[in-house]
C-alpha cells in the first residue's frame, strides 16, 4: 500500500494520489476542467490495457447458492436411466473417504436425473432444459462452459474464490481489480457497481465480496439499491433542498478557495472536487437508475418483473443502462439457489425469476450493438451433485430430492465481449460429476475475463506486505477455446 500509484482513480483518491497529482502539477488545473470529463477514459495503471480489449465492460450475473447444472444446461440422460443407483466409487477417484459437504454423512449416493425435459435449440443445438424457454432463444449468442471447477465446497469460501480468486478472505474483488487496472470511462458514476436482487434468503451476501481489500478503498464496489437512494445518502433528508446543497457548496468553494491561497494543500482541492462530484452524482445516479422512461417494448424483453424495483429483471435493465454509461464492472447477485431439498419446487420458482431477464439482457445489448463489447457471464459459486441429498428419489416419488454442493464440475455461460458465440466449451462425464474435457478453473475464468478486457492477468499486480498480489494468485490460464 506504500507504493506510488502513478494513476488517477476513477472515483475518489487516496491521500497518496492526491499528493502525487499535486506533485505533478495537476492540482492547479481549473476545477471545471476536471469535472467536465464525464465520458473520457481516466485513471487506470500506466500501460493498461496491455493489448486491445475485446470487451469494454463486464456484466457478471452471479447466481449465489450454486445452481444445479443438471436441471439447467448440462443434459445427462444417463442420470435418469440410472435413477436410484449409487454413484459408482470410480467416479470419486475410487476413494471411499467421506465426501465433503453435508452429503458426506449420507450412507448412499443415489443418482437422480432432471425431471425437466431437455431439447436442443438454435443453430448451435445447445441443450437447454424446458424451464429456460427464453434463454433457449438466445443460445446462439452464448458460449456454454460445461467444465467449470472450483476448489471450495462451502458457500463462504467458494464465493470468496469466485469473487477474489482466493478462498482466503481479505483479497480484492474482481471488479476492484478491474477498476484499479483500467480506471473508469465515466467519472460521474462509480466504475464498479453492485446490484443485489431484493429477496429474503438465509444466506446473506457479505460486502467483503465486493471489497477492495488491500487496494485503495475507493475501488470497492458501490452497491446500488432499489429505493429512492440508489447510493447511500444520495438525497438530502426531508426539508433540505438541492438548491441549499448547491449554496452550501458555493460557500465551501469560496472558503476553500481562499484557504488554498494561504496554504496550497492539494488535499483541499481534491476534497472540493469530490464534493462537486458528489453533487453531480445526485443527478447522474437517479438519471442512470431511472427505469421509468424505458419503452414498453424494452420492458417486455425482460419480462413481467421488469417494473418491480429490486427484482433481477429490473437489475438487468439497470445493468444495461449502466453499461451504456460505460460503467466498467457491473456485478449482479441473485441468491436463492441452495437447493439441498425440494430442488424441483425451488427451481420452478427461481428459474422464471432469471430466465427472461437474462435473455432480455442479451437481446437488448445486441439490438443496441453493445453485446460485441460487453461481456456477460452467468453462473454460481459451484454446481450441485449428480446424486440426491436428503432422500432417495427412487423411493420417495422423486420430487422432494435436493442436491448437495458440488465443486468438481458445473456450468457457466458467457456471451458477447469477444466470446465465441454458439459454442459449448468443455464437457462433463456421463454422470455430470467430473470434468471430462477441458477443465476451466476459477483462476482460468478470471484470467480469461481479464484477457477480454485487454489485461494480462500476470501483469496486473499490487504490492502488499511485500508481495505482488494478483487476482489469479499463482495460477490461471486464458481459455483460448472460448475466444472469438
Amino acid at each position, binding site marked *: 500500500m506504500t507504493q506510488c500509484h502513478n494513476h488517477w482513480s476513477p472515483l475518489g483518491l487516496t491521500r497518496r494520489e492526491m499528493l502525487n497529482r499535486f506533485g505533478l502539477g495537476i492540482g492547479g488545473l481549473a476545477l471545471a476542467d476536471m469535472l467536465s470529463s464525464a465520458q473520457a477514459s481516466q485513471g487506470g495503471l500506466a500501460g493498461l490495457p496491455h493489448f486491445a480489449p475485446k470487451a469494454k465492460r463486464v456484466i457478471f450475473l452471479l447466481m449465489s447458492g450454486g445452481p444445479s447444472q443438471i436441471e439447467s444446461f448440462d443434459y445427462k440422460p444417463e442420470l435418469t436411466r440410472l435413477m436410484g443407483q449409487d454413484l459408482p466409487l470410480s467416479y470419486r477417484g475410487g476413494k471411499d473417504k467421506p465426501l465433503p459437504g453435508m452429503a458426506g454423512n449420507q450412507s448412499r449416493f443415489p443418482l437422480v436425473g432432471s425431471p425437466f425435459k431437455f431439447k436442443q435449440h438454435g443453430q448451435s443445438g445447445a441443450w437447454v432444459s424446458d424451464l429456460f424457454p427464453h434463454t433457449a432463444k438466445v443460445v446462439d449468442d452464448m458460449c456454454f462452459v460445461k467444465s467449470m471447477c472450483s476448489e471450495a465446497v462451502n458457500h*463462504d469460501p467458494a464465493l470468496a474464490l469466485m469473487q477474489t480468486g482466493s478462498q482466503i478472505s481479505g483479497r480484492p474483488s474482481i471488479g476492484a481489480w478491474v477498476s484499479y487496472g483500467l480506471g473508469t470511462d465515466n467519472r460521474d458514476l462509480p466504475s464498479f457497481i453492485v446490484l443485489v436482487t431484493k429477496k429474503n434468503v438465509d444466506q446473506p451476501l457479505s*460486502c*467483503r465480496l465486493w471489497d477492495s481489500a488491500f487496494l485503495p478503498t475507493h475501488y470497492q464496489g458501490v452497491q446500488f439499491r432499489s429505493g429512492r437512494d440508489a447510493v447511500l445518502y444520495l438525497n438530502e433528508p426531508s426539508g433540505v433542498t438541492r438548491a441549499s446543497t448547491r*449554496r452550501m457548496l458555493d460557500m465551501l468553494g469560496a472558503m476553500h478557495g481562499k484557504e488554498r491561497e494561504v496554504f496550497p494543500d492539494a488535499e483541499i482541492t481534491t476534497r472540493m472536487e469530490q464534493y462537486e462530484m458528489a453533487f453531480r452524482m445526485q443527478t447522474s445516479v437517479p438519471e442512470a437508475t431511472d427505469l421509468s422512461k424505458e419503452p414498453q417494448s424494452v420492458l417486455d424483453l425482460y419480462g413481467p418483473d421488469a417494473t418491480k424495483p429490486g427484482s433481477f429483471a429490473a437489475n438487468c435493465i439497470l445493468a444495461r443502462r449502466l453499461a451504456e454509461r460505460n460503467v466498467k464492472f457491473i456485478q449482479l447477485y441473485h441468491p436463492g439457489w441452495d437447493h439441498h431439498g425440494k430442488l424441483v419446487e425451488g427451481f420452478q420458482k427461481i428459474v422464471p425469476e432469471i430466465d427472461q431477464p437474462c435473455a432480455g439482457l442479451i437481446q437488448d445489448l445486441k439490438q443496441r450493438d453493445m453485446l460485441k463489447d460487453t461481456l456477460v457471464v452467468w453462473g454460481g459459486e459451484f454446481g450441485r451433485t449428480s446424486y440426491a441429498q436428503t432422500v*432417495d428419489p427412487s423411493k420417495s416419488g422423486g420430487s422432494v430430492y435436493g442436491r448437495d454442493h458440488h465443486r468438481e464440475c458445473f456450468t457457466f455461460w458467457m456471451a458477447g465481449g469477444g466470446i465465441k458465440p454458439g459454442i459449448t466449451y468443455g464437457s462433463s462425464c456421463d454422470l455430470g460429476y467430473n470434468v471430462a474435457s477441458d477443465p476451466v478453473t476459477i483462476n482460468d475464468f478470471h484470467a480469461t475475463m481479464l484477457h477480454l478486457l485487454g489485461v494480462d492477468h500476470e501483469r496486473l499486480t499490487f504490492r502488499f506486505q511485500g508481495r505482488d498480489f494478483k487476482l489469479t494468485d499463482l495460477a490461471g490460464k486464458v481459455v483460448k477455446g472460448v475466444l472469438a
Partner: protein
Amino acid sequence: MTTVFAVSGRLTAADEVSYNFQVRPILAEHCFKCHGSDAKQRKGKLRLDTREGAMEKKSIVPGKPDESEFIKRLITTDEEDLMPPPKEHRPMSAEKIALLRRWVEQGAVYQKHWSFIPPVKAPLPPVASADGKPLHPIDQLVRAKLQQQGIKPAEPAKREAWLRRVSLDLTGLPPTLEELDDFLRDESDGAFEKVVDRLLGSTAYGERMATDWMDVARFADTFGRHEDADSAVFPYRDWVIKAFNRNLPYDQFVIQQTAGDMLPGATQDMYIATAFNRLVQQSNEAGSNEEEFRCEHVADRMRTNGSAFLGLSLECARCHNHKYDPITMKDYYSMSWFLSNVDELGLYSRYTDAVPAPSLLIYKDNDESRHAELKLRITTLERQREAMRGEAWGRFNQWTNAGGRPAVAKPVVHIPLESFDAKAAENLADPKHPGAVRRKPSDKPALGRVGKALHLEGDNWVSVRDVGDFSRTHPFSLSIWVKITAIQPRAVLIHHSRAGLDAASRGYEILLEDGKPSFALSHFYPGNALRVRMKQALPLNTWTQIVATYDGSSRAAGAKLFINGFPVETDVVRDHLYKDIVYEKTAKDLTDVEEVALAAGGRYNDQALKEAYIDDLKCFDRQLTPVEVRVLSESASQSKPEEWFEWYLREVDGPWRAATDKLTEARKQENELSMTLGEMMVMREMPIEPRPVFVLERGRFDARREQVQPGTPESVLPFPDDLPRNRLGFAKWLVDRRNPLTARVYVNRVWQIFFGRGIVGTSEEFGMQGELPTHPELLDWLAVDFMEGAWNVKALCRQIALSATYRQSVVPTDLALLKDDPDNRLLARGPRQRLTAEQLRDSALAVSGLLSHEVGGPSVKPYQPDGLYDEAGVQAAYDQDHGDKLHRRSLYTYWKRTLPPPTMTVFDAPTREFCKMRRDRSASPLQALVLFNDPQFIEAARVLADKLVGQYPQDDAARIRTAYRLLTNQTPSDWQMQVMTKSLQTEREELAKEPALADKILHVGEAESSKSLPPAEVAATASVLRALMAYDEFVMKP
C-alpha cells in the same frame, strides 16, 4: 522515496557505512532482481544478498574494492560488462557507487535485517533549539536529520491548532470552548503539560486508544461468516478501554490478552482479555468440516499476532518457507502450537445461540459470590448425603426384614421395535408418544435380540419427540441392544438433540467411535461438555446391550457405561460441563430439520449407523443402579439382597430422598444461574491432553506432515529456557526485553496515532519487505525508553504529544516541502490528516452537545439507512436504538462484519474481519454524501443551531463566530466571517420563501428541538452548520 531518505538518513558516523540502511537499499534496487534470493531469476550463479554468496566467486573481496569484480563491474566502460546492465535502465549514481566502494573497503559487513537486531539507545546528537534550550530526545533526533539536510523545522502551531490536534489525538474529541479559552488564557510554563495530563486522565482517552486497537483486534459484534450471527464480546472492548485508562503497562496488556487465563490467580478481567485470540471469523454453515475451519481460526490468530505484536506477515510461512524473512514453515507451525491448544469446535452453532466454548461466565454485582455459594452448597449437600449411608443400612435391613421387595425402575420410553413403519413405532412405556422410523428398511424385518429388530442402512433411524428432555441436573439412563457388522469411525447410536455439529451437539448422545461406545452430555461440544468412552470396541456380529447412566452431577464421574449388564472401564474424554444441555425456547427455529428428538441409529447431517441392527430402546428418568442394569440385561439370574441398597436409597429411604431433593434443588438453582449469566468466548488450555500440531502441506488442514513442538522463530528470538513452553511462555516471549520487535512495533503504532504515519510507514510489516524506518535512531530510542520505563503507554503518549516535533505548524517553512516530502517523512512540519470515521461522527455529536458520555456496555444501533439489511438480504432486523443510545461514541456502534456501518466504512474503517494495522485515508464523493446528507450530521447541525440561536437570537456575527470556534477551534478571519454571515442571510431569505421546509429540517433525527425558537432561524443556521461540517478545518486535524 524510501531509498532517498534512507541513503542519507542514517546518522552513524559519516565514515561507517551501514549495510541495512545504506547498502541494502541500493542492492535491492539495482542488483537483487538477478542476484538475490530467487534462484530462478539468478544470473551468473551469483547472489549478492548473502555475504557467503558474494564471497563465493570472489565477487567481493573485503577491504579490497579494486580487486572486487563487484565494484569493477559498476565502473567499467565496457557496455558488455557494465552492471546494472544498461538495458535495465537502472543506472547507478556515482554517489551510490562511492558508497558501495567504501562499504567494501570497510570489509563488506553484512547485517541481519535491521528489525531483528535488538534496539539500543544511540548517543543523542548535540542539537539544541533555536533559543538554546535543551530539546527532548525526540526533537534532537528529528532535528539532527533536518539539519543534515539543511531544512528548518516549521514554526510552532498556533495554540488553538495544537489544542485541537492533541485533543483529537488523545481523546478522539475536539476541545470544548471552555477548554479552548482556559488554554488560551493560561500563560504559565506548564500550560501544555496541564492539557496533556488532563486529556490522559479523561475516560475519553481510553476510548480513543481502544478505538484504534479494535482494528487490530478485529473486534466486531458478529461472527462474520455464513449467517453472520451476533456474538456479544463487548466486555473485551470494555476491558481494552479500562486497560488504557488505568494505564496498564503494555507488556501486561500483551500478556493478559495472550494468556490472561494462565496467570496465577487469574481474575475475570484477565480471562476477558484473552478474547483477543477468539475474535476470529467463524462460520456455522451446515456441511462444513469443523477441522478445516478450526485451522482457519488458528491461521487467523497467527496472522493477527504476527501483525499486531511482531509486525511480521507470518501467514506467508503457512504454505511455504517465508520468501523474504527467515521464517520457516516449521517455525510457523511451532508457533501456531501455542494458539492451537484451545478446546474449540471450529464452528459456531446453527441451531442454538450458545457461546462457542471455551467460554467464561461473566459475573456482575453479587453473581460471583452467589455462584460460589451454590457450588459450595452442592458439594456440602453431596458430602452430607454420602455420610448418611451408614445409618441408612440399618433402615434398609429393617425394610428388607419387613418384607420390602425391590423392583427394577420402569422406563419412560420403551420402543421394542417389534412393529413399526415410517409413521409409528410403538412406545410401550408411553403410548401417547409413539416413535417413528424415518424410512422402512429395504429388506424384510430382521431378527432381533427378541423378536424383530430395526435394520439400519445409514438413513433410517427411529425417533420419538417430546420425551427424554433432561436437564444436566436430572439423572437418567438409556438402554439399547445393538449388533454391528463393521467398525465406523463415528456413528450415532442414541441421541437427544436437534443436530450434531450444527448444534455443537447440544443434548446427550451415545456414539460409537471406532466401535467404542461413548456417552456425552453437551452444552457446546467439546469445550462445554462431558464425555466418557469405553476403552474397547464392541464385538462384531453379536447382539450387545449398552446401558448408560447419569447421576445429575454434571461430572464425567457421574456418567457410566455398562455392557451386557456389567460396568466397563472408560476414559474421561471431556469433563467440563457448566451450562445446560436442553434447548432454549429462544433458539432459532429453522425448517427442514427434525426438531429435538430422542432417536437411535442416526441423526440428520451426521454419521448414522450402517449395516447394523438395533432392538429394544429404553429411556429411564432416573439413574439405574448396577443391579437394575444387570437385571435389565437378563444376564443375571440371581441378585443378592444387599445389592439393592442403592435402589432402596433412591426409591424408599425417606432421609436419603429428602437429602436428594435438597441436592437436586441446589443443582437446579446453580444451573438456572449459569443460564442467566453473561458469557463470553475466552482462551483456555486443552484439558487432559495438549492438541498435537503438525506442519500442514500448503496449509491444507487434511495434509498433515511432521509433528511439531511448541516454539518460536529463532531468527526473532530463540525461546528462552526459563519460560514454560505454553501460551503463557509465548506471551512472555512476546514482551521479553530481548525481543527485538514488540516494543518497536508498538511505539511505531503510537507514533502513527499522532503523525498519521509510523516511523516505519508499513506499521504491519517490519520484515524485509516492509519500509525502512525514516528515523531508525528515534524508533529505537522510543522503543528502549518504553521498555526501560516499564512499558508506560501514557508516558509514551505524553512525550510525543509534548514534543516540539508534534507541536509544529502544518505549514512548512519552505512550501516546496509539500511537494518534495508529501508524506512528511522528514517531520519538518506538523501532522495533518482527515479525521477518522469515528472522530468525524463523534465530533459532530460533541459540538452539538448530543454526545452521550456513558462508557462501555453492549453495542448500540444508531441511525442507519432504511432497508440497508433488507437490500442486502440480511434476515435479521436492524432494531435501531433510541434516546441516548443514538448518540454514543462510534466505538460503541454495532459492527456487523458482513455489513459494517456504511458511514464508517466509507471513511476507510475496515470490516473488522481480520487484523488491520493501518487505515487508508481516501477521499471519495461517497464521503461527501455522508457529510451532506446523513441524518446524524443534519441532526447535529440543527441541535447545535438550536443552542446558538437561543444564545444569540439577534447577533448573526456572534452566532457564526461561536459556531466556527466550536467546529474548528480557530478564530474566523474577517473574510471567513463575511462569507458565512452572508450565507446565513441567504439561507434565511430562502427559507422565508418556503417556510414549511424549516419545520422539516428541525425534524431530522430523533433529538428534541426547542419549540420556543423561530424555526426558520434555527433551520437557516443549521444549513450553514451543515456546510461547516464539510469544511476543511472541521474535517481535518490542523
